[in-house]
């Protein structure tokens, strides 16, 4: 463990929010979170968001009655099943131990009698895993609320491609993960077949925010010992020297933070197409993002949104 990581252990924990929706992608995201969180001071929150019941949809009969009836039969609700599976996965990979202390809490939320419920597991060293079942007007609202109010360093949300969107109960369709990635103030990983051992492809545009993304990614990558590969796309051959300068600057920033760069590459062509194609060889495509609203997006950072829509694998929007 290097000095920086040790230092971090003594400061505030690195907070990771993993959105669980019962899909394989969300559990892959959880494995990745466990990797980021292992070996250093980190808290992981597993979040399942259930929509607030709409009063008219059940014709005046409270939905709670149907849920209670299921529980009376000894059946778990979908939310509990999904969170239990996530809990078991953390035990299986050795992140969570049976001997961790646990504490349950309940918060009443206007509009739903079930409210928010959580179970907090704490290790002897103070590391935490929190299982949280939240009710919200929509999944994306719940995730964004939790992400902002909990001041998480990183949010991991699974994604389904448009057309493949499996909207089972609270599964996050492509548009939900896109809204979270777009609207969140914090760093977001949109997990799509997230694999652990292929490194981060850090895409640099040369903007100040892309260098901040490099710093941020270095912090995250070193937590999980993931190699970083720097990547630039030039519009034409003439731009290559300029892009090389950007790569060199990013390399220095990362090395200054005590981490290394495993490779770098410059391609010529359309940025989105190049990033999507090259990115498919890596665990994560890392892009810098700013929370721009409305038509500002038209002039800036649209590459981020186009990559988000087109990428075949996971994308991290670093903020």
């Amino acid at each position, binding site marked *: 463990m290097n000095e920086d990581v040790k230092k971090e252990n003594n400061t505030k924990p690195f907070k990771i929010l993993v959105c669980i929706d*019962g899909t394989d992608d969300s559990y892959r995201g959880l494995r990745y979170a466990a990797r980021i969180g292992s070996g250093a001071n980190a808290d992981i929150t597993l979040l399942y968001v259930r929509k607030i019941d*709409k*009063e*008219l*949809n*059940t*014709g*005046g*009969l*409270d*939905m*709670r*009655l*149907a*849920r209670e*009836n*299921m529980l*009376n*039969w000894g*059946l778990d*609700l*979908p939310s509990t*099943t999904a969170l239990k599976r996530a809990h078991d996965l953390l035990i299986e990979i050795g992140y969570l131990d049976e001997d961790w202390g646990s504490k349950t809490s309940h918060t009443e*939320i206007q*509009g739903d*009698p079930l409210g928010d419920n959580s179970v907090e597991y704490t290790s002897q060293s103070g590391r935490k895993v929190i299982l949280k079942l939240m009710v*919200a*007007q*929509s999944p*994306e*609202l719940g995730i964004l*609320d939790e992400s*902002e*109010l909990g001041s998480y360093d990183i949010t991991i949300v699974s994604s389904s491609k448009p057309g493949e969107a*499996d*909207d*089972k*109960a*609270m599964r996050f369709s492509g*548009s939900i993960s*896109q*809204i979270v990635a*777009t*609207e969140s103030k914090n760093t977001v990983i949109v997990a799509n077949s997230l694999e652990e051992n292929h490194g981060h492809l850090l895409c640099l545009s040369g903007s100040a925010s892309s260098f901040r993304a490099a710093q941020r990614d270095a912090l995250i990558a070193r937590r999980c010992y993931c190699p970083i590969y720097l990547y630039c796309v030039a519009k034409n051959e003439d731009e290559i020297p300029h892009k090389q300068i950007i790569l060199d600057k990013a390399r220095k920033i990362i090395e200054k933070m005590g981490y290394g760069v495993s490779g770098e590459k410059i391609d010529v062509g359309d940025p989105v197409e190049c990033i999507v194609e090259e990115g498919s060889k890596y665990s994560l495509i890392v892009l810098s993002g700013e929370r721009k*609203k*409305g*038509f500002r*997006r*038209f002039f800036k950072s*649209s590459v981020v*949104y*186009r990559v988000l*829509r087109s990428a075949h694998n996971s994308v991290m929007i670093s903020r």
Partner: protein
Amino acid sequence: MRFVGLTLYHSAQSLMFNLMRGMRRRNTGSGGIIQLLHGRGWFVMALVIGAGLLNLPTPEGLTDQGYAVLVMSIVATILFVTEPIPLPAVALLIIVTEVVLLGVNPNDAAKSIMSDSVLFIMGSLMLAVSIVKQKLDKRIAFFIVKMTGTNTANICVGITIVSGFMASVIGEHTVAAMMLPVAITLIRLTSEDPKEVRRLAAALLFSISCGCAIAGISTPSGGARNAIMIGFWSEFYYDPLNPDTFKYLIDYVSWALYCFPIFLVQLPLTSYIILKVFPPEYNSLNRAVVKLRAQLAEQGKMDVGDWSTIAILFITLVGWITMSGTIGLGIIALLGAIAFLVVGLVKWDDINTNVNWGVVLLYGAAISLGVQMKDTGAAIWLADKFITLLSNIGAESGVGLWLSVSALTTAVTNMMSNGAAVAMLGPVALKMAAVSGESPLLMGYITAISSSFAYLTVVGTPACTIVYASGYLKASDFLAVGWRMLIMSTTVLMLFAYFYWPVLGL
């Protein structure tokens, strides 16, 4: 161009998301009016639309009050569908605007929200809670698997039949809440991995929701929409001094005579469609059924509580059949609920917690708005416009008109609760009958029955919403089954309207 389109799409998506974003859990920054209005986007939009429409000149042939009622209906529909504020608040808003905007006497406005239909909705919800609390579902499950054996298709058909017959009497939400654990238990005992039982789960769950949907129209007690339509017939056409209008007082048996056969014909067709769209992965649920039987066998014999429940239900049903014409459906439903409380089979707290009283209030307000549409002439004006519009395509009467009314009701009921759809469309449909020379009873039956064709969306019917909560279904599954069910149900309805109802004198 694709780039521009995509960026514009994202900008619009973000704009809409932030406009409609719900109330935050805690104040996280910007305070004041903006924070207050956060998540109230649709409410503000509905008010702006309402104010804008009210400032337009009153359309020709419509009174100012009639126009105001039409605008109120538009605003209420937006609020019903989008729910930016609690629905009981929408109900209260309707009552307030009736007094403020229409000048209705406050006492009359208050009276108009309570009728036998509303008492029926209230009573049937109380009955629903009482029945679900008795845990008869395990006995029903045992009966189904005993009757059907282990063949998967037979079990699906059995669930459709049992759900259907129960939903024809006690309301589909009750049946769906009772049957959901039965289906999920069978699914999970077959496999814990949802991917391995994807189609089996869909077949079992749709057997519940579709069975409930087709049965809900078969008797007046099957759903709120039926009671609402019975109330409208009585309100619009019944005159105690005119014996010719007595036919508009529809009792339990009369309704069942017209509608129950429609349910029976749809039963096998429904099972066929479900099994065709979602052929289960397993032909036999031998393992699951054996385990389920073992679980259910632990219950022992039926006790006094179980028999009391069945007795109260039976007496209530007999009451509906024999006395609903004289004392009304609502009073009998309330008597049933009171019986459960008196015998001690259910606690008031259970009823109070599990019945959403706000929805009862909402139905009352929606019915009141429907009555105002009639009283102010808005319903007949709208009906006249519809008929004129339909005459352009030669659908101003006969099967063309029936189909048009059915299609309109189906479209509305897939977006909002079927009871609310009938409350909003019923007055217009009945007035369309007057304009076109059709029988109001026929148009009323078509509207009420079509309101059960909410197969396409998760929010269409309470049963759909409840089975969707199981987590085993996708929203697209409802479309896959729904369009086939829609065609089948509409065809069956039209055939009955054309061939069977005239035999009964309609």
